[in-house]
């Protein structure tokens, strides 16, 4: 199979794998099939989904190197954009269903609650990465594009801290995610040393 076709197939798969769970989630939530408190469920699902997609995105380039399949890099932007889409839904869920468009409450929660503050910071950073993924902007930005996108390493750690900070008592899952962060970053030790 030609690489172009492989990329097409992979991308189609990514679209399906990212969109179908999301559609299913909201379908169930609107039909009241998502347990007694669908708000909690949609918030958690989209939040964890975004973190998962970020981690997968960061796996692409090490994987492409290891198995020597350079065309895999062409799926990276799409994966990153889906991490952003999930984050957008995560934020919409919080705004529309948790605080229910109480603007004052939303702003005070973002300012007063450190875990929401850093979640919001992560969202702004992720938005910047998403916007600058447009080819035209990428070309215009030149070298500064790479500098900006190197912040994805910081981003994944901040998002994991946001998760860790939000849980009530169960720490095993957030700690597992810290381990995953460490793993995807460990492939980039040289680069990270240079950046720091």
């Amino acid at each position, binding site marked *: 199979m030609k690489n172009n076709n492989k990329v097409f197939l992979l991308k189609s798969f990514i679209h399906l794998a990212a969109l179908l769970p999301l559609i299913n989630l*909201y379908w169930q*939530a*609107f*039909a*009241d*099939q*998502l*347990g*007694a*408190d*669908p*708000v*909690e469920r*949609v918030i958690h699902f989209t939040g964890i989904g975004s973190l998962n997609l970020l981690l997968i995105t960061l796996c692409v380039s090490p994987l492409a190197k290891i198995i020597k399949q350079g065309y895999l890099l062409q799926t990276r932007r799409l994966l990153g954009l889906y991490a952003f889409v999930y984050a957008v839904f995560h934020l919409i869920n919080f705004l529309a*269903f*948790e*605080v*229910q468009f*109480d603007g004052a*409450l939303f702003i*005070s*929660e973002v300012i*007063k*609650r*450190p*875990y929401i503050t850093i979640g919001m910071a992560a969202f702004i950073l992720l938005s910047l990465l998403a916007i600058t993924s447009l080819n035209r902007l990428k070309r215009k930005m030149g070298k500064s594009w790479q500098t900006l996108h190197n912040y994805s390493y910081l981003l994944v750690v901040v998002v994991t801290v946001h998760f860790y*900070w*939000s849980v*009530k*008592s*169960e*720490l*095993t*899952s957030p700690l597992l995610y810290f381990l995953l962060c460490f793993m995807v970053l460990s492939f980039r030790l040289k680069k990270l040393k240079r950046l720091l």
Partner: protein
Amino acid sequence: MLINTPKNSTLNDSDVTDENIYHGRRSLLKKMGFIGAGTLLGNSIVNQASAGLFGDDEPRFITTALDYKKDISNLDLAKTPEQKVISHNNFYEFGAKKEQPAQLSQQFNVKPWQLSISGECDNPITLDYDDLLTMFPLEERIYRMRCVEAWSMVIPWVGFSLASLLKKVAPNSRAKYVAFETLYDPEQMPGQENRRLGGGIRYPYVEGLRIDEAMNPLTLMSVGLYGKTLPPQNGAPIRLVVPWKYGFKGIKSIVGIKLVEQQPPTTWNLLAAKEYGFYANVNPNHDHPRWSQASERRITSGGLFSRNRIATLPFNGYGEEVAALYQGMDLSTYY
């Protein structure tokens, strides 16, 4: 006078499918299937096929109807549907996710049960399962339930006041506090066995009240909800309900009540003292460090759009009955 005109669509008690029949519906279907298909196919094939088709046939915990006096004072409160009350639970002994207790507790055994009331009192006693249901006249109490996580429900509990139980054992003058303890049985409670499932809290779960809080007429020992005995996920066979405090004070599946002189340790306070105090009175003016307590999401029927965020009331709206208990206390110090 409240005039209630029933709509055509309104169901009566007599319209409700008996619970035993409802839970047995699959075996009923199976039996019907056997008569039909069994004449065509060998029995063993049908057996295998039906086992595969009806694999979700885990027996559910059977609750039974109770005799009780109806609560006619809180009819204006829109109740949270029973299905939501019994499927959305914080009972980490059966898993820290909201849906897990209903899934992982159906084999829970409440017979035999022993609840001992001891400590600083003249007549310590131990009650068995039947005593819990028959020792006191049962009454319905429709209470608001405010979770510390900022959601709430309205639940028709059935039970008796803790005060009447405590009077039976005659507390002495050293009884300043009441300490409660949940069953510790890792074989039956997977959350106690597995730290990840159990949310990393210490077991057995313990809670406590000041004696005057315990004697307040609102404080309820609940043995049922929606007219039937409690299902395990809600704390069968007996649990505490303190409607002006956050839900985590409502300790479930209680085996021990002890009258003590010193303020007893409480589970969530041991885990994070800055976040969960001993008193845990519902207080819109004292935020949890990580989220606001000024308002709450009331869980009623419907999906994502149909629940409302409402203002949280001091003492969960029971201030008239209980505010006097805390006169002169700084509620942001004693949260």
